[in-house]
């Protein structure tokens, strides 16, 4: 531990060198831009800048790449909150309560809550990275396909309470999400599914494209129909609002801690940030006292998923550094960057290139702290966007969304998909098909199915593998309990009511 503290101090001082500090600043600002623009995620941003870093010293290069990543994590929730358009998959959960809160005229409050929660998620992630990396990576190794499937089940069960009024329509919506996810090439057999011979369908439906359409464009249609304009809702943000935002995050400490823990745990396995944010949101809702406020701008509905998203994004660095498995798409690209520098991530990186690893960890501390300052400084500007007239902002939103949809895969067809998804987003919302479960199924469907089938392949078809102790079993039991929790708690409440009416009377 003492040695770690010493190394960490060295790392931070490397990250604080003027040149590295400047590089981090540039990276953060670029990252926020990348995060704000939907479709241009951290992965693209990093991949595109890798060529630039080749001319830099490796440590400055990695600081630049990592800073873009931190910036994009912070920036992703901005458009979710302001326009209901998630810039990144893990900021979808930020739309559930962030957008309603902004819509009520408090975009500044929503943004500050989100940013501060992000920071706390990052802090736990970086602490894990600094002090417990070797132990935790051992734990991460024990997660095989069966364990991942159990985690997916837990995420779905956490979300069970988020359906709409009509149970049949909720189911249809979930099924549609899964079906959309299965279009394209099947990972396990290599078969082409639901493509009907079309090259365009082979690529499947990208999650970001679907979400930009369903949430973003759909919401624009709803807004114009009601004659409401997305304008004039943004109040000014004063310094006071920022401090009160920080305090409010502490008031929601339960949701915050929940988000931090769920995030940092989920980030250890590939693709963790998105399920983490959904899971944290689901749990926060089920555990909250003011459940009925969720979906209408509940502060804990912002805090939990945001802390989880950034926590997962940060802890994703841990398996990348220690095992060479990237915990997120962006980490995969950063790993590619490391290889170009001649640094092969994995268990030997800590031993062979300690100076480099600690420089990177030091920059995680500096980058996330600086990032918070940068986004808080920009928050008033972001919030004031909502004061611009609708006739100006609407075409720009559609334009930026079109760029985003295109940039995900460099495909023109995705822009058409986006418009079609927009129409369906509107119809679904009007006719009571809940969108959130559909989107959750779309983003996790492929991962859950692959994990299930890989587990069954390994076990030779025996479903018992899904309940294998010591990890999968408790997770599955927890998933089942949480799935039935609404009915259980109802039952318990009834019994309690009966008892109390029988008891003293």
């Amino acid at each position: 531990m003492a040695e770690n503290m010493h190394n960490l101090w060295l790392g931070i001082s490397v990250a604080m060198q003027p040149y590295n500090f400047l590089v981090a600043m540039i990276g953060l600002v670029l990252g926020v831009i990348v995060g704000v623009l939907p479709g241009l995620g951290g992965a693209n941003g990093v991949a595109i800048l890798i060529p630039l870093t080749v001319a830099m010293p490796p440590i400055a290069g990695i600081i630049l790449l990592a800073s873009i990543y931190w910036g994009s994590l912070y920036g992703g929730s901005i458009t979710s909150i302001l326009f209901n358009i998630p810039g990144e998959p893990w900021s979808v959960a930020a739309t559930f309560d962030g957008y309603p809160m902004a819509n009520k005229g408090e975009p500044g409050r929503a943004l500050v809550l989100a940013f501060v929660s992000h920071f706390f998620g990052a802090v736990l992630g970086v602490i894990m990275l600094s002090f417990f990396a070797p132990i935790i990576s051992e734990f991460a190794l024990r997660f095989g396909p069966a364990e991942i499937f159990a985690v997916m089940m837990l995420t779905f069960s956490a979300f069970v309470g988020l359906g709409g009024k009509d149970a049949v329509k909720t189911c249809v919506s979930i099924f549609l999400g899964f079906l959309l996810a299965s279009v394209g090439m099947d990972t396990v057999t290599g078969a082409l599914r639901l493509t009907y011979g079309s090259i365009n369908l082979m690529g499947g439906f990208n999650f970001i494209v679907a979400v930009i359409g369903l949430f973003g464009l759909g919401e624009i249609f709803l807004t114009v129909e009601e004659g409401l304009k997305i304008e004039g809702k943004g109040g000014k943000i004063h310094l006071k609002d920022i401090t009160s935002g920080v305090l409010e995050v502490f008031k929601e400490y339960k949701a915050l801690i929940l988000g931090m823990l769920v995030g940092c745990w989920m980030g250890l396995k590939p693709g963790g940030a998105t399920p983490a944010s959904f899971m944290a949101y689901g749990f926060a809702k089920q555990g909250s006292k003011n459940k009925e406020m969720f979906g209408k701008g509940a502060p804990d509905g912002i805090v939990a998923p945001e802390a989880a998203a950034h926590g997962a994004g940060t802890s994703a660095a841990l398996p990348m550094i220690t095992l060479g498995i990237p915990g997120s798409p962006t980490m995969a690209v950063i790993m590619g960057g490391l290889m170009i520098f001649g640094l092969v991530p994995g268990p030997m990186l800590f031993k062979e290139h300690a100076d480099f690893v600690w420089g990177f960890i030091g920059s995680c501390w500096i980058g996330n702290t600086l990032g918070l300052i940068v986004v808080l400084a920009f928050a008033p500007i972001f919030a004031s966007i909502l004061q611009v007239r609708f006739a100006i902002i609407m075409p720009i939103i559609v334009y930026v969304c079109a760029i985003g949809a295109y940039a995900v895969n460099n495909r023109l067809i995705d822009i058409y998909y986006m418009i079609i998804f927009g129409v369906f987003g509107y119809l679904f919302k009007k006719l009571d098909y809940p969108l959130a479960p559909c989107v959750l199924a779309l983003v996790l469907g492929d991962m859950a199915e692959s994990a299930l089938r890989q587990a069954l392949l390994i076990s030779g078809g025996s479903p018992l593998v899904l309940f294998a102790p010591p990890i999968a079993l408790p997770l599955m039991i927890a998933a089942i309990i949480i799935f039935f929790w609404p009915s259980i708690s109802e039952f318990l409440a009834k019994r309690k009511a009966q008892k109390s009416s029988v008891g003293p009377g």
Partner: protein
Amino acid sequence: MYVTVEVGNKKSHMGVYSMSKRFTGLKILMVLACSLALVITSIGTAKAWEPKMPVEFIIPAGAGGGADVMARFIAPIISKHKLSPKPFVVINKSAGAGAEGFMYVKGQKGNPHVIIITLDNLFTTPLATGVPFNWRDMTPVARLALDYFILWVNAETPYKTPNDYFAEVKKTPGKFTMGGTGAKQEDQIITVLLEQQFGVKFNYVPFKGGGAVAVELVGKHVDSTVNNPAEAVSHWKAGRLKPLALLDHERMPFAGWKDVPTMKEATGKDISYLMLRGIFMAPGVKQEEIDFYVNVMKKVTETPEWKKYTEDMGLKPAFITGAEYVTWLEAKEKETKELMASGKLLK
């Protein structure tokens, strides 16, 4: 360049000769001939063909994989050493195991500003999916390098040689799992090759990326893998994995890797399977355009950065081009097809 010369000449000549109208027709002809000669000589003296706009560098695979890393490594080398007047812009088109990228290049007939980096999915993707594509639909430029495969097991297992391991596998056919990247792609083909050669039967489990496969092996979720050297080297050095044999005729020429025996040394069976890292262009391009890219790629492979990179990643330096490359591609395609047929992996 020569266009302006041509226009300038015409104008000045026209001015001088326009007085004598009788000879106008002839004069114009002469002028035209002169300018044509000028054009031809200017082509001759000017540099060979060069790209006039940014070159699209297509990757038929996702971000973060081996081909992606290589393309993103090559692009900056080209600009750093000023090998091309226009930049190479890297674009991922990974849908359908790369089918999207191949179909895109196939459709860019005659466009000299598109190149694509390929791996073995050049052969496996059309064979496994039935996508109407063949490598002959593109113009071969050069083979840059070849990627090795090694048979790995967890370091805690008692197997010392491939024979030890295969003997165990034989006892319970289909029980031992072989982890690999993707379905009906190179890792599964190698599994088929091993099954054929050693009379064993594996249970092949596909995962999404090579790095993830190595970690599944470290975590003992699978029994063996055929990872590329770069994907598993760190776990090997950390004492978690051990290499049983290299799938090539000779040992790897790099310092850290010389101790890994070949299949021939370890089992007596001379088995080799190497993966292509090569470059193609769109169909119907001119020879001078091909020459430009051949030249650029040749220079790339001669840079010190490339030498260090191939050593770090454990790649076999194997630059070939022209007819030699085509012959190699034909042989490789035949081999892939036969193995896929015997493993029932064909569409």
